[in-house]
């Protein structure tokens, strides 16, 4: 279809055609088109079929108000045609269609609407239960808007985020929002202005009406230019707001232009103050068949003509409730649409200037009339107009029916901001009655219609917002208040709930997305869901992607009318976020993968390490595809292995009160630390559970070096400071976890390997078990060397500055080659230490067991009450208790299917505990288990049964209770 002649309000460039595909055919739009405007211009009227009844649905709003115009683009479903810019080569398809949009096979469902009352999905198909899957499958196939094609699109656009900080954020780029931004910016603070459409200007953008001798669209351009020229205002267009939150956090997403780095991305703006100027939209008129293609708000048709140069129809009938419809009628007549009549639900109160202009244009004006029913199926072909009092009716032919029941305010941002809202009996809209701190409202959502009044309210809100953010603007605010007072106040609204004479069975839609009709509202009320918030859930009104836009205020008004509630007591529904739906990929696509790597990551990767997540770290878990790690384990026991234990927590604590702090958090007597010696101890929480273990070394007077488990490294400073927060002690902590890497050289040959790369005396006499030495390795690498034995062999833990660790690893591997050195990973370590009976916190300990229960009670200095050790009262309290879980060793009988970690331990039918860790040990020759079982079953020599039930086939294996130190119980090997 040819476009209308160029006009200054147009936002398209007809000289740049864009070709695309629709429903298998070729079509053409122009630059500046949205998918919706291009399709409409190409003659498409039925865009989709509705959710339940498969009724034909056409273009409704132009801002994503309903799912009518959701289309699949290049295989991606549920794209809002009105807000998606047309791109060359797009393949566009209609949704929820069997056959074609115009001739849909399920269209017959519309005749059986009696079978699908409100809530039918919940009420009718759930009994008998065995038939539910059948119905579910059938219903899901018929209902729905679009089908995901996981293989359809391989596009994985980048994911980005943007965080803004501002003194004042303004939601809405219409005249009020722009005036607010300009006023707020006078204070010098940072201002961010967010507009969901591509251009600033709001409802001025397409209006040619002269005010003070200037067309309104020119006024919009002028304001936009001033905003753009203001250095401390940042403008974000095509940036819908998804919500405004506590203390004025604005969230939304930025839609990128074609060729941008992503389709859209998430933004957040933390503002000191916020101005909400989100404006109004037309409140849909509820009348029979009000969903027919060709029935739309007046603004939609107006914008199609003014902004997109598309003639929306040939013969239009208006049935409105606001002066904007009168203005639209005059404008559309000017664009060449034959206007058959302008009905207005208001009997009086019209703008006399507009009424006169309508008369001059020769248009029939029917105050006190509205639409009662639309005619036609795939297209509207006519309308039955009715008098508001139901007295008369008249049929008119038309292909465009521009209907509304006045305006409604777009309260979404106020709803998420938790402003109190109330129905205003003058403006006929929900308006804020109480606003949170530093939040302000301006513009037409306050009921203002006069453009000067709208700008004045914007200016006042902007000044107040800047003042709340710290700018002294008292005199400016006083002037702005006067300006608002002198400008025309809120206009009277339209109070029509729905068309007169509407039958209880009428197919008059309150919500298009969920196919919620007037009849369904009546049914909901009859079922007892008689307030809007309940009916919303039962009938699904407003649960669709268009959310509040279409059913919003109508639901509340119709329910009030049904219940006979006076309008001043009208209560609405809460508008839920996201106010505009972003793509899931915008919030959760591929993107952030920041994790920690040890300084030995590359060295291990080169040797075939398989990495797994371990807290924030990626750690080497296996060095071969044999996940039982037999070779790694055997090599540590027989030769020597090296483990990257860099994530181990490493700290320095010093200061006059350092020892007091150690005494507080560790259970042992920490006054017994010695230079050159590792003191092993543990930390508990206030319930006596094991939280952490590690060694403490005195490295100077009041100066200590200590280690924590990897998982606790991040919480250690917090833990120390929390448990000493009332004491006023002077001590300092330095987290050295990342400063020092750690290599655990373990196995009978460990000493021989280390001796090759250091001159330090490593003899048992000079450097015994649990010793600590500072040595120099290789080409001057300073190493803190701890002789420990977590895996049960002669071991040296080498803590070296991280930047040297790669070099150190190479050195060790070269030196160890002749002794059969191999790296080992976390899985091998876990098996090695379990054979030795060393616990891992959270694996062999949990919230029900104390330090004593897991056999580590010997660490606790029970006589010390003066230090107020964390956990000591609980340990004391639990020490006499029976019927507690205890950590035991199990020697598990050979079985066809071996028990696994987590299997439960039973005695007959009683559950007495569970297996924490179990492995078939090549070292021992039998399967061991570390288990937590009740103390009644804990004595050594007893037998228990282990119940396994993987994949639903149960089996029982027997085990004998033994001491949990299976390997080298005397500890001879680690002292060797």
């Amino acid at each position, binding site marked *: 279809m040819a476009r209308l002649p160029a006009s200054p309000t147009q936002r398209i460039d007809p000289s740049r055609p864009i070709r695309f595909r629709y429903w298998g055919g070729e079509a053409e739009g122009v630059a500046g088109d949205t998918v919706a405007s291009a399709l409409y211009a190409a003659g498409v009227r039925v865009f989709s079929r509705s959710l339940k009844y498969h009724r034909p649905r056409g273009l409704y709003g132009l801002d994503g108000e309903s799912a009518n115009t959701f289309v699949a683009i290049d295989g991606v479903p549920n794209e809002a045609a009105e807000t998606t810019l047309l791109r060359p080569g797009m393949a566009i398809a209609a949704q929820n269609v069997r056959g074609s949009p115009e001739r849909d096979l399920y269209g017959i469902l519309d005749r059986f609407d009696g079978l699908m009352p409100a809530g039918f999905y919940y009420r009718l198909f759930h009994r008998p239960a065995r038939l539910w899957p059948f119905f579910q499958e059938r219903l899901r196939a018929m209902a729905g808007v679009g089908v995901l094609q996981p293989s359809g699109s391989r596009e994985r656009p980048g994911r980005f985020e943007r965080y803004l900080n501002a003194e004042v954020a303004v939601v809405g780029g219409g005249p009020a929002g722009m005036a607010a931004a300009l006023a707020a910016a006078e204070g010098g603070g940072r201002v961010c202005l967010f507009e969901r459409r591509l251009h600033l200007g709001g409802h001025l953008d397409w209006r040619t009406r002269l005010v003070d001798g200037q067309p309104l669209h020119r006024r919009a351009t002028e304001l936009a230019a001033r905003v753009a020229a203001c250095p401390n205002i940042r403008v974000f267009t095509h940036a819908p707001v998804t919500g405004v*939150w*506590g*203390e004025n*956090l604005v969230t939304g997403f930025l839609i990128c232009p074609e060729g941008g780095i992503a389709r859209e991305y998430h933004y957040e703006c*933390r503002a000191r103050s916020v101005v909400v100027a989100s404006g109004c939209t037309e409140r849909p008129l509820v009348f029979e068949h009000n969903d027919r293609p060709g029935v739309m708000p007046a603004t939609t048709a107006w914008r199609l003509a003014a902004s997109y140069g598309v003639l929306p129809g040939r013969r239009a009938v208006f049935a409105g409730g606001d002066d904007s419809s009168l203005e639209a009628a005059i404008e559309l007549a000017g664009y060449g649409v034959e206007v058959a009549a302008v009905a207005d639900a208001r009997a009086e109160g019209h703008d006399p200037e507009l009424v006169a202009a309508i008369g001059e244009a020769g248009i029939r004006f029917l105050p006190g009339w509205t639409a009662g029913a639309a005619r036609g199926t795939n297209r509207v072909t006519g309308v039955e107009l009715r008098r508001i009092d139901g007295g008369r009716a008249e049929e008119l032919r038309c292909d465009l029916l521009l209907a509304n029941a006045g305006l409604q305010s777009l309260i979404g941002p106020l709803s998420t901001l938790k402003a109190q809202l109330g129905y205003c009996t003058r403006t006929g809209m929900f308006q804020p009655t109480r606003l949170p701190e530093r939040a302000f409202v301006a513009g037409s959502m306050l009921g203002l219609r006069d453009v000067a009044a709208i700008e004045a309210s914007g200016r006042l809100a902007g000044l107040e917002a800047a003042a709340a953010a710290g700018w002294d603007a008292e005199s400016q605010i006083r002037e702005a208040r006067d300006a608002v007072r002198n400008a025309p106040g809120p206009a009277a609204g339209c109070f029509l709930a729905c068309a007169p004479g509407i039958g209880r069975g009428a197919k008059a839609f309150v919500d298009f997305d969920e196919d919620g009709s007037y009849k369904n509202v009546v049914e909901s009320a009859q079922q007892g869901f008689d307030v809007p918030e309940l009916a919303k859930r039962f009938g699904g009104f407003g649960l669709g992607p268009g959310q509040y836009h279409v059913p919003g205020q109508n639901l509340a008004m119709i329910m009030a009318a049904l219940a006979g509630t006076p309008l001043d007591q009208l209560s609405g529904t809460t508008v839920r976020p996201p106010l505009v739906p972003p793509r899931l990929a915008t919030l959760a696509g591929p993107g952030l993968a920041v994790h920690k790597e040890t300084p030995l990551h590359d060295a291990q990767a080169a040797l075939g390490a398989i990495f797994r997540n371990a807290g924030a770290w990626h750690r080497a878990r296996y060095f071969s595809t044999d996940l039982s790690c037999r070779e790694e384990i055997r090599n540590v026991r027989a030769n020597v292995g090296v483990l990257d234990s860099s994530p181990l927590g490493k700290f320095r604590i010093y200061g006059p009160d350092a020892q007091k702090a150690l005494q507080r958090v560790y259970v042992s007597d920490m006054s017994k630390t010695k230079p050159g010696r590792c003191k092993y101890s543990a930390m508990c929480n*206030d*319930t006596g559970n094991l939280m952490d273990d590690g060694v403490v070394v005195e490295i100077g007077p009041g100066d200590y070096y200590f280690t924590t488990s990897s998982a606790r490294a991040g919480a250690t*400073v*917090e833990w120390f*400071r*929390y*448990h000493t*927060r*009332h*004491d006023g002690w002077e001590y300092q902590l330095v987290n050295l976890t990342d400063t020092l890497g750690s290599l655990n050289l373990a196995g009978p040959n460990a000493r021989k390997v280390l001796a090759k790369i250091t001159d330090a005396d490593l003899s048992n006499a000079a450097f015994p078990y649990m010793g600590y030495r500072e040595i120099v390795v290789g080409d001057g690498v300073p190493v803190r060397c701890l002789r420990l034995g977590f895996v049960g062999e002669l071991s040296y833990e080498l803590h070296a500055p991280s930047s040297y660790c790669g070099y150190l690893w190479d050195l060790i591997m070269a030196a160890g080659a002749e002794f059969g050195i191999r790296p080992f990973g976390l899985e091998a370590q876990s098996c090695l230490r379990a054979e030795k009976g060393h616990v891992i916190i959270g694996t062999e300990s949990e919230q029900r067991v104390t330090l004593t229960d897991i056999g580590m009670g010997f660490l606790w200095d029970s006589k010390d*009450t*003066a230090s*107020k*050790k964390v956990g*000591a*009262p*609980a340990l004391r*309290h639990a020490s006499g208790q029976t019927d507690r879980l205890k950590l035991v060793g199990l020697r598990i009988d050979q079985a066809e299917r071996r028990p696994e970690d987590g299997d439960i331990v039973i005695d007959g039918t009683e559950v007495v505990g569970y297996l924490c860790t179990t492995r078939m040990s090549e070292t021992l020759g039998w399967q061991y288990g570390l288990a937590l079982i009740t103390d009644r079953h804990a004595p050594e020599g007893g037998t228990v049964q282990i119940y396994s039930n993987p994949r639903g086939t149960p089996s029982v294996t027997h085990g004998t209770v033994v001491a949990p130190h299976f390997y080298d119980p005397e500890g001879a090997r680690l002292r060797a």
Partner: protein
Amino acid sequence: MTFMLTCPICGRRELHEFLCGGQERGPRPPQEGLSAEAHFRYAQFRSIPPAPQPEWWYHGQGCGVWFKATRNPATNREERPGG
């Protein structure tokens, strides 16, 4: 839910930077002769009155300092910010 807290070192920051250490309940009681009940009352029991109450907060993502804030759990607003 989102709100901001005033760290005495860093100023007003987003909630997600902080860890809550619970209500202020005074220094650890002396352990000599401490009954189990008294201990668990101190260590475990909390009340959440809908009124301003002193709380401990840890600025874990920031300066790493524990501080006391007076917050009203009913409104999530601080009294005497930074106090």
